[in-house]
């Protein structure tokens, strides 16, 4: 039984773009306030007071559009995967569509599946374009993640996102999809009930049965279906809630460290949740050479993983310089203390 997901027409990435807010807080500063030491990452990104998932998505989408060099009026769908919608009911994707000049002839919706929401949008865009229902579809993964103050998630919950414009494979695509695969089970590792401000997690339940089971099975399933081994890939990007989990997953699967490092950004920007692998892939596309193959595996609590195999094409050389690169945003940083961080995260009631 074929488990690989593959549309009738080959599709690829026409344009991509990332965005990471400029503010950073060091984990040791968070630890100073809550009396903790021994941290999962160095520092994480913090949104500006005037930033949210919609504004981050807008800048990422504009960067994707610059590289795609297409008229935004040709985009037939914008789907945003996020856990941090500015409005509980009003969609984020309509705000993005309006801001990039794509309205009104398109579909728009927000996707939810914890940190996997961004790759859900990619899977759907592949089907939408690969069936020739639409010429272009945009998939975005973005979050401004919040951890309960003092909880271990506060040390990694970060902000950022990336956007991908999917179109039929051509000389204009910077990379094409060889196939994808999704693996999901009902796993209560992390959740947030309606009207609760912060998510809850099943503590020790998160590692083995959740992250590793899904990431590894998704990666293995995809490689089996395509007949590949880790040797066939030049890069691998795994969901990165911290630094340890993706490195451990890589080791179990047999990927050497140097294939994982270029797309592993959580140590310096934190966990951008639904944005995490999309931002990691954008950092890899910023440096990859035509012909190189990339494994892309997300993870979302609840739980599931999407895995993709993409092959870089010639157009990358000309298109990557058309918009700011992922590292341009990582290098642009201003450190803030916990008091200002609390203002940025709207902890003060005025």
């Amino acid at each position: 039984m074929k488990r690989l997901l593959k549309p009738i027409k080959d599709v690829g990435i026409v344009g991509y773009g990332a965005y990471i807010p400029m503010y950073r807080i060091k984990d040791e500063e968070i630890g100073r306030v809550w009396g903790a030491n021994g941290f999962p990452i160095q520092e994480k990104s913090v949104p500006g007071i005037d930033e949210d998932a919609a504004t981050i998505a807008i800048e990422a989408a504009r960067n994707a559009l610059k590289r795609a060099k297409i008229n935004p009026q040709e985009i037939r769908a914008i789907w945003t995967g996020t856990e941090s919608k500015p409005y509980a009911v009003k969609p984020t994707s309509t705000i993005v569509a309006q801001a990039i000049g794509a309205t009104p002839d398109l579909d728009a919706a927000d996707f939810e599946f914890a940190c996997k929401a961004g790759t859900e949008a990619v899977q759907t865009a592949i089907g939408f374009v690969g069936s020739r229902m639409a010429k272009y579809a945009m998939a975005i993964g973005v979050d401004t993640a919040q951890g309960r103050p003092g909880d271990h998630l506060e040390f990694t919950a970060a902000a950022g996102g990336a956007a991908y414009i999917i179109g039929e494979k051509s000389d204009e695509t910077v990379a094409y999809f060889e196939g994808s695969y999704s693996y999901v089970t009902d796993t209560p590792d992390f959740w947030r009930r309606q009207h609760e401000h912060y998510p809850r997690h099943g503590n020790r339940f998160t590692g083995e049965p959740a992250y590793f089971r899904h990431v590894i099975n998704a990666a293995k399933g995809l490689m089996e279906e395509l007949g590949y081994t880790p040797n066939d890939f030049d890069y691998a990007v795994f969901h990165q809630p911290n630094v340890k989990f993706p490195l451990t997953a890589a080791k179990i699967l047999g990927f050497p460290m140097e294939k994982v490092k270029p797309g592993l950004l959580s140590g310096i920007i934190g966990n951008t949740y639904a944005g995490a692998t999309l931002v990691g892939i954008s950092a890899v596309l910023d440096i990859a050479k035509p012909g190189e193959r990339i494994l892309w595996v997300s993870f979302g609590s609840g739980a599931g993983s999407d895995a993709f195999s993409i092959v870089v094409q010639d157009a990358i050389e000309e298109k990557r310089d058309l918009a700011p690169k992922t590292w341009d945003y990582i290098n642009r940083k201003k450190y803030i203390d916990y008091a200002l961080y609390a203002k940025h995260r709207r902890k003060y009631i005025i």
Partner: protein
Amino acid sequence: MPAMQVSRYWRHFKEKYRLAGTKCKKCGKIHFPPRQVCNECGSREMEEIQLSGKGKVVSWTIVRNPPSGFEYYKPYPLALVELEEGPIVLAQLTDVSEDEIDFGMEVEMVTRRIREFSEDGIILYGYKFRPVLKTSKD
């Protein structure tokens, strides 16, 4: 926020979200905000154009006692920005500290939260300007 104010803002989404202006088909003058009649030659033949969003700070002030809906953002810089196409716009600067702002500072447009109202939760988005992002190809 009164419903009337929201609907007035909503009618201007194009200019607020992405800096869409107008260009006079007769004399070529570019306007922002968009105009129906050219203030140069009086022509009514206008076309919508997307402004580049690049400009320079002409003048600025720091707002320390903001009006309602802007309280959480204080203090914030408010500037006159001369767009490269000519029009001058009044807008907030963002991602910049007071001591970094200077006359002639090169800025670029971003879309950010402008104002919000806790009573009904309406968030208004719109243009602001930040220092031009340094990129590795520069």
